[in-house]
């Protein structure tokens, strides 16, 4: 029919192989999409709390340093930027440390999972568990292309496709079949491969020790359901350095929170707002410049809403501000709780006395993080986000009243003195980080190891060649 005719009326320049990781190769056939995709490298746009500009979150909000004391995020945490920056950002982040070579460094290979179309290629070549095994540095020469075409598309049909096993396994665990997803759902599910809360399961039967990437969705996607899941398997990401609470880190539960909002309820997909249709020179195509829709209100919002662009922006900011107001207050209480708990330990509190309090801290901070880390959520789903923050307030109030009584019992019946965390530096010093050392090892790693990775990759990719259509068809 005419639709298919139209679909193939362009003349393909090259044959794209399965799991082709090089975005430029795909770009030869789909130049409009590729050109717009390249723009995700841009880092000049900033909004109230988003955009593509580099923003040091620890600097903007020094509470975070204390909340994550003892965990990688207290070293370095920035605003997410466009997909083209994924490899660069994970390489530069102090969280991945300064590995000297294979087997070295703080992070596992699993960290690469959401950063590149080299991932499905490698998983195909090596096997899934094998991909997740070993250190982050072990695969540095294999993973060099930033998030791109093969992450979301089938190279033959260009249909949307799920390239990451974690999402498929999570659907299985919920008793759902991802193959039943509608076209419209796929326009969000390709994003749900990455913009979701995850953890590393090191106890997978048969794969013990491998940090296997998992989405904790078995009981559901709400903040309570995931908490219940983690509590049941007694999982914790780390032990807090001040309070010694067994902590959970929520990482970008963007898809989960989006689902609870009115846009999802009305069938609006991620791609509708973040990848709207675009006309250029009479040609219509999906804008692959994935970014804050506020940089593109006319295509992203005004398709459905005819209000002024300024008004729509204000709607977004309004929801973000109202959410931020309470999120920041909750954060303040959490900081106090950690410091008060530390004081209690210092005064000789027992494990028994601290047990309930630490669980309160764990649960309250989990809720805060679920609301905070799901970056778009204060717009995607402001009511659910507020509910989650409210539940965090509840738990931390219980915890802090218990703490006040415990401290009184230990002889300290007054407000606990709070540290000076007015700058990122002071906060990092307070939690005992040697930033100088971290920055130094990162610099050495970038000077010595990274160039080798790039060279090895270039060498490897040079053998792939381009499969010109005329030669192959």
């Amino acid at each position, binding site marked *: 029919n005419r639709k298919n005719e139209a679909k193939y009326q362009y003349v393909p320049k090259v044959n794209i192989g399965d799991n082709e990781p090089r975005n430029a190769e795909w770009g030869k056939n789909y130049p409009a999409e590729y050109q717009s995709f390249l723009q995700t490298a841009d880092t000049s746009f900033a909004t109230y709390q988003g955009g593509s500009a580099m923003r040091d979150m620890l600097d903007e909000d020094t509470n975070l340093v204390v909340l994550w004391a003892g965990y990688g995020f207290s070293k370095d945490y920035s605003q997410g930027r466009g997909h083209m920056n994924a490899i660069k950002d994970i390489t530069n982040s102090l969280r991945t440390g300064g590995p000297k070579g294979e087997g070295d460094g703080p992070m596992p290979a699993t960290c690469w999972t959401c950063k590149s179309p080299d991932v499905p290629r490698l998983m195909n070549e090596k096997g899934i568990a094998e991909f997740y095994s070993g250190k982050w540095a072990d695969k540095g020469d294999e993973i060099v292309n930033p998030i791109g075409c093969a992450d979301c598309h089938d190279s033959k049909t260009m249909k949307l496709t799920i390239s990451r096993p974690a999402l498929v396994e999570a659907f299985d665990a919920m008793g759902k079949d991802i193959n039943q997803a*509608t*076209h*419209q759902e796929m*326009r969000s599910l390709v994003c749900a491969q990455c913009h979701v809360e995850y953890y590393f399961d090191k106890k997978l039967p048969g794969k013990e020790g491998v940090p296997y990437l998992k989405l904790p969705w078995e009981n559901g996607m709400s903040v309570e359901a995931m908490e219940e899941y983690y509590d049941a398997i007694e999982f914790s990401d780390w032990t807090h350095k001040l309070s010694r609470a067994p902590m959970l880190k929520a990482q970008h539960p963007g898809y989960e929170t989006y689902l609870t909002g009115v846009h999802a309820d009305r*069938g*609006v997909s991620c*791609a*509708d707002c973040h990848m709207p*249709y675009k006309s250029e020179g009479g040609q*219509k195509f*999906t804008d692959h410049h994935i970014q804050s829709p506020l940089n593109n209100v006319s295509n992203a919002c005004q*398709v*459905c809403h*005819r209000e002024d662009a300024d008004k729509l922006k204000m709607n977004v900011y309004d929801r973000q501000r109202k959410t931020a107001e309470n999120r920041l207050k909750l954060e303040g209480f959490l900081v106090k709780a950690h410091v008060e708990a530390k004081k209690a330990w210092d005064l000789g509190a027992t494990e028994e006395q601290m047990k309930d309090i630490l669980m309160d801290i764990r649960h309250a901070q989990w809720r805060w993080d679920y609301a905070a880390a799901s970056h778009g959520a204060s717009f995607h789903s402001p009511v659910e986000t507020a509910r989650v923050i409210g539940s965090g307030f509840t738990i931390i109030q219980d915890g802090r009243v218990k703490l006040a009584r415990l401290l009184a019992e230990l002889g300290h019946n007054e407000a606990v003195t709070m540290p000076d965390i007015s700058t990122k530096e002071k906060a990092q010093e307070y939690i005992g980080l040697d930033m100088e050392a971290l920055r130094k090892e990162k610099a050495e790693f970038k000077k010595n190891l990274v160039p080798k990775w790039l060279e090895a990759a270039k060498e490897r990719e040079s053998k792939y060649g381009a499969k010109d259509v005329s030669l192959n068809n």
Partner: protein
Amino acid sequence: MDIQNKLLPNKKSRWRTIAVFFIAIITGLGLFMTKEAELVSYMSDDPLACVNCHVMTPVYNSWMHSSHREWASCNDCHVPHNNIFNKYYFKAKDGLFHASVFTLRAEPEVMFMREASQEVVQNNCIRCHVQQVTQVKYDGYIEDHAKNRTERQCWSCHQEVPHGTVHGISTIKSNIAPIPTDKEEAVIPSWLEKEMETK
């Protein structure tokens, strides 16, 4: 079309017809019409201009209660928007037609849009909703829309947009739509005004 043609309308264009109609209105109906139908306001985009005629009150009120009140005024739908000449040509022609019917008290109980008007409205629906009705990606979002929309008028499905499902000039009993000639602004009754002054 070259620049000259744009500035100086072609002899065969509708410009002449428009002029003729303007003259017809001014000389033919003259002062009576001006007073009776608030002619000046009829040239504006204010929906109140249309309620100058009571027979327009039912459609005004239904529009006032419709999803489009905040977005589209009468002229957004009922007057062509493809170019400025066409807009005023159509308005003038329409105005003359309505005015004649009205003056003759020949208005039917239930009005229908003439075919020309229907085309205008259909085009205006599309003008505003072009993205929603033409983008392939909404095929999944709004089922069968692409297939159905081409063969029918939008309002064969979207009956409520914007005048509802009940039509006719007797559908409203107590006609209290705002009147453009009504200049009295106060919403506070005079007794209260007085009481508050003397308090």
